[in-house]
């Protein structure tokens, strides 16, 4: 009987080989695919079940993982959720991650390369993997001031420190509460996310750096003015400023706000043109300078470039190959010109910083679970779009705007504010977007602020940058200066 027993043992071996093959198939070959199956909660438990690092603003924890008694072990909690919602993003079972929760994910969940030694220590100590803590550059006082000033209106505020590029505030309204999305149920979180997506006011969009972007309107004249100054103009140079500008190749004309003239004569100085925000002057100036000059000046500020702060910023847009009338309209920030508030803040920052644009950034420090600093961002120069003389000249012009021009509602006692208003037409039936781009104190600015309020805010068709946006910038500047004076 030994011979059949031997043959049977071959059969047994074949059976076991089949089992080893099938288990390898499940646990190795198909493992990733099975792991990504939406019905598999284990990957969720692994992801969501560990201690995720906190996000900190000025020593206060705004996002933390609180231990709870359910299979996920930790509940992601957002203190003052809506205020920081577009910065932190959400961390949700259904919709996933956004904002800093997404870009800093590897650091927050402890899997980043920078945390390798920490993980090794945890392996030997037998403790669970912990994430690093991320400290932001945001100043909570400035953020809160921007939030309060924007009120019930839709729009965005961005505040940067021109000397370093640190982003002091970034507010976008309408907002949402990420804590709600962090609920421990995929069906519930999906439902909530869906309702946010369907909300006509688009609360999920960070209007400061993305979304549809806005035509900058008259704030674009800063670019044109800078291009002119670099081309040899000076603030005293006389330029044409007709009552009405005939656009070549068309029957259209450009007029000024309210149909008024910019000055008693048909010519005004460059400074005057900026001070009163003269459309006809800048439209003509744009055509005179030529589109390439304007385009390259804008590009010097990062217009059209990809940027991560580390949140991904939608590039601002310029028309390509505009014809004469289109150049004229672009010169006053209409036609196909589109900007993010961050881009406009960068322009203000560069002007205030002597012509040197610093790289904007949000993340200041990253600390490991033992509070040792593992990353610290140091300020970096992004570009030098203009000479310091041009910057100085522009600063004088922008101060004029606030002292006696279209931006007087941004004046602050004892502080010299430099700014530029903008009222961007959006179409025949809708109210304009209103802008205010500024920095202060003009001589050595500690903050550059860009404000945009959508569709007139609550002023309807009467809205202008000076009326609606400038007071918001004023509040933000006041908070920033107070903070900076207090050693913040």
């Amino acid at each position, binding site marked *: 009987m030994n011979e059949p027993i031997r043959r049977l043992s071959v059969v047994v071996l074949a*059976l076991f080989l089949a*089992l080893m093959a099938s288990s390898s198939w499940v646990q190795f070959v198909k493992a990733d695919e099975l792991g990504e199956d939406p019905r598999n909660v284990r990957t969720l438990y692994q992801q969501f079940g560990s201690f995720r690092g906190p996000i900190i603003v000025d020593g206060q924890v705004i996002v933390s993982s609180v231990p709870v008694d359910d299979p996920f072990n930790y509940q992601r909690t957002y203190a003052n959720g809506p205020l920081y919602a577009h910065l932190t993003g959400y961390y949700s079972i259904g919709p996933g991650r956004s904002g800093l929760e997404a870009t800093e994910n590897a650091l927050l969940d402890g899997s980043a390369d920078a945390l390798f030694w920490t993980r090794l220590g945890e392996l030997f100590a037998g403790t669970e993997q912990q994430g690093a803590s991320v400290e932001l550059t945001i100043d909570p006082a400035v953020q809160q001031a921007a939030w309060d000033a924007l009120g019930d209106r839709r729009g965005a505020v961005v505040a940067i420190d021109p000397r370093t590029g640190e982003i002091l505030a970034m507010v976008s309204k309408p907002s949402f509460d990420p804590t709600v999305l962090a609920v421990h149920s995929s069906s519930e979180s999906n439902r909530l996310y869906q309702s946010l997506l369907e909300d006509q006011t688009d609360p999920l969009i960070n209007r400061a750096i993305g979304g549809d972007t806005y035509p900058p309107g008259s704030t674009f004249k800063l670019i044109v003015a800078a291009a002119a100054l670099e081309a040899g103009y000076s603030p005293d140079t006389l330029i044409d400023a007709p009552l009405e500008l005939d656009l070549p190749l068309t029957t259209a004309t450009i007029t000024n706000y309210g149909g008024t003239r910019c000055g008693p004569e048909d010519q005004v100085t460059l400074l005057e043109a900026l001070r009163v925000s003269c459309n006809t002057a800048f439209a003509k100036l744009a055509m005179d300078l030529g589109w390439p000059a304007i385009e390259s000046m804008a590009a010097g500020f990062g217009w059209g470039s990809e940027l991560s702060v580390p949140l991904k910023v939608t590039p601002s847009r310029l028309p390509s190959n505009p014809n004469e009338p289109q150049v004229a309209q672009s010169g006053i920030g209409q036609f196909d010109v589109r900007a993010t508030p961050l881009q406009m803040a960068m322009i203000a920052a560069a002007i205030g910083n002597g012509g040197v644009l610093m790289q904007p950034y949000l993340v200041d420090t990253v600390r490991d679970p033992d509070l040792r600093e593992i990353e610290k961002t140091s300020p970096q120069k992004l570009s030098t779009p203009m000479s310091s003389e041009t910057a100085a000249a522009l600063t004088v012009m922008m101060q004029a705007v606030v002292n006696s021009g279209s931006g007087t509602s941004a004046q602050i006692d004892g502080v010299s504010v430099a700014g530029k208003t903008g009222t961007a037409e959006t179409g025949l039936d809708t109210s304009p977007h209103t802008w205010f781009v500024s920095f202060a104190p003009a001589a050595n600015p500690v903050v550059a602020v860009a404000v945009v309020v959508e569709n007139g805010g609550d002023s309807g068709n009467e809205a202008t940058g000076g009326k609606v946006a400038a007071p918001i910038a004023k509040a933000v500047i006041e908070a920033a200066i107070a903070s900076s004076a207090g050693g913040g």
Partner: protein
Amino acid sequence: MATVLEVSVRVGRRSEAVLLLFACAIALGARAFVDANAGGGIGAQFGMYAAAVVALAIAAHTVVRLRAPAADPVLLPAAFALSGLGLALIRRIDLAYAERGRETDFATAQELWALVGIVGAMLVIALIRDHRLLRRYTYTAGVLGLVGLMLPLVPGVGREVNGARIWISLFGRSLQPGEFAKIAFVVFFAGYLVTNRDTLALAGPKVLGIRLPRPRDLGPLLIVWAAALLVQVAQRDLGASLLFFGLFVAMLYVATQRLSWVLVGLALFAVGAVAAGTLFSHVASRYESWLHALDFSVYNSGSSYQLVQGLFGMASGGLFGTGLGSGSPGLVPYAESDFIMASLGEELGLTGFMAVLALYLVVVQRALRTAIGVRDGFGKLIAVGLGFSMALQLFVVVGGVTRVIPLTGLTTPFLAYGGSSMIANWIAIALLIRISDLARASATEPGPGDGPRLVIDPTLPVPDAADATDSEADGDAADGDAPASDQARSEAAR
């Protein structure tokens, strides 16, 4: 006259002791990990458990040393390691269930069953001195097996659990007599086949080029086998029917060496499987949920939920596992019994899974080796039956879990929660130890196939030819029986 020097054969008790040490290390190490990860730390309870495990190991080893000194050294430690690992896993699963709000204490019950099983095994080794004694009870075993199988069908005694009627309740505890019936049937088949194999193989008519057995020879065998199958089908225990069928075909093949019957058997099985799929709706749904397990419609209906969750668990284990205590075995229904291998795959990874498979393979291989080594046909057939049934059972279970074949209700020997399975498997190990003892002891004696063995003492003068013939060992016993040369083995049953 030549002098015969004793050649000491390595019988393996020392190897067994060393291997038992490893087995205890595995069992206690796993349990320590589980306790540590549970948060309560390793405390007094673990100390008592460790003491009990070591004491049992020493006791079992002593019994083997005393009663089966030449037994295979791998069988006991392997069974010990598997049981210990299973206990630790089940304790882990208790904790996983508790996390999800379900209080269970499978671990304590399983520890009790393991204790009963090992003590039972020790009793079997101690009390059954020679496996050939069992041959007297061939028909009794057959009847007992049938009765055991049919008991759950008796109203009042039997209980239906999850659609299968395979349980009875005895003194408040549930018992699966089918597990014990399996051993009884192995004894019956072995006994019957060894007696009648020649007539079965040779005395029938030739039909279509295949020699068939005579009805009077095959009759009793076929009746018992068919009855068992029918009962199992009636009980909706398809896994057991598959196991019995495979077991029967394998033992028949080993006994008669007729490959053609194996092919006929496989064909019959295929026909049966298709027929069952067509005729019985619950079988058809098993096929459906096997073939289309990941389809959303099948999953959402609940029929492939267990299988898919088991697959997810194993996949998340990957190569090295999530670690004991870090996975989510509690998500899989019956993670402690039907799907214990999936829980093992999840927490110990592919490496752990393969290691356990290899351990089972080693046990089966030792059983088959015992079958080859033992001299009598009865012992061979029992060893083959027990070994192959373990291999086939494992294939059916793990194949179901990894989607090679549809799921059935069979249990994983030693690992899965279930008292009857644990005790029955330990008794099987005990029988294998008993048989291997005889197999390896008679390896030191000359057998019928071996030539005479001369041991030459170099200090003595060279004997002449006449002296040499006197000292030939006698190896004249008939085929299939051990020689009657040793006093302890004076009966040569035929």
